[in-house]
């Protein structure tokens, strides 16, 4: 209640702040909280179902192509790096860097998705489908929804990039870059988890 007193004496016009960060950032983090619960629904079901049927579960590498996906994981990590570079660039007002790295991020993200599409085609070609038991069901649902998130990310990334090329972000105001960055890194983070528990364990 200290500020109560403060306001009474001096009548300062300062809005109360809960988190000390700007609205868009709060909004994005709050949204990511709900994304966490969405993936909890999918990943949690996977863990539970796998517990129930552990005996029948294929060993890593038996069905899935780990090397390709390992490379793909690396690709996604790179996109996270370029993303963060873009942010670092604009924090120093470096427009060229911003545009370059944003573009790179979008492209690398798209690359990740295409590799995943390739992987799906191979698997389906070898008769591994969502309908092939719990393994197929959980695999395609989890990776599918992650892929969907990346795709959405790429689209937004292109939009932000376009804006960057029109000089939409400045040293003073580049909230948009940071916020989409948060989303992008989150999707990367989810993949780190998925890669481990789906492909390696």
């Amino acid at each position: 209640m200290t500020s109560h007193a403060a306001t009474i004496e001096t009548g300062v016009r300062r809005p109360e702040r809960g988190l000390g960060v700007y609205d868009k950032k709060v909004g994005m983090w709050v949204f990511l909280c709900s994304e966490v619960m969405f993936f909890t629904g999918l990943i949690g079901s996977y863990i539970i179902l796998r517990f129930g049927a552990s005996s029948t579960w294929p060993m890593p590498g038996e069905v899935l192509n780990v090397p390709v996906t390992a490379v793909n994981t690396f690709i996604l990590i790179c996109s996270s790096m370029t993303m963060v570079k873009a942010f670092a660039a604009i924090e120093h007002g470096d427009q060229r860097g911003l545009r370059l790295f944003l573009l790179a991020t979008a492209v690398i993200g798209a690359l990740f998705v295409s590799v995943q599409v390739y992987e799906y085609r191979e698997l389906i070609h070898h008769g591994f489908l969502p309908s092939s038991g719990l393994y197929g069901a959980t695999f395609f649902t989890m990776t599918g929804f992650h892929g969907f998130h990346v795709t959405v990310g790429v689209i937004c990334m292109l939009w932000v990039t376009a804006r960057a090329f029109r000089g939409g972000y400045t040293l003073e105001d580049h909230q948009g870059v940071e916020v989409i960055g948060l989303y992008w890194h989150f999707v990367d983070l989810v993949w780190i988890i998925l890669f481990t528990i789906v492909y390696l364990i």
Partner: protein
Amino acid sequence: MNETETPLEVGEHRAPRYMAIWGALAVLTMIEVGVAFLGMPRSVTILALLGLAIWKALLVALYFMHLRFEPKLLRVVAAAPLIPAIILVVLVLFEY
């Protein structure tokens, strides 16, 4: 909690060395793949892999998403959903 005088932009942190983080992530990934096929006892493998995954996740969250440089409260917000998430999975696992 609401009397934070912090200005809206919390940008004063020295930018972390992103390339180093990136390198670490790449290396950890390779280690993971290695561990997975080393053929250690199943339980050891699983624990090791989970440990590595969490490590990587933390690197991304703390540096790429620069949680490390955010106000404490925001870090709490970011971590909060893990509580219901864990509750859900753990309690349902009691079915076995």
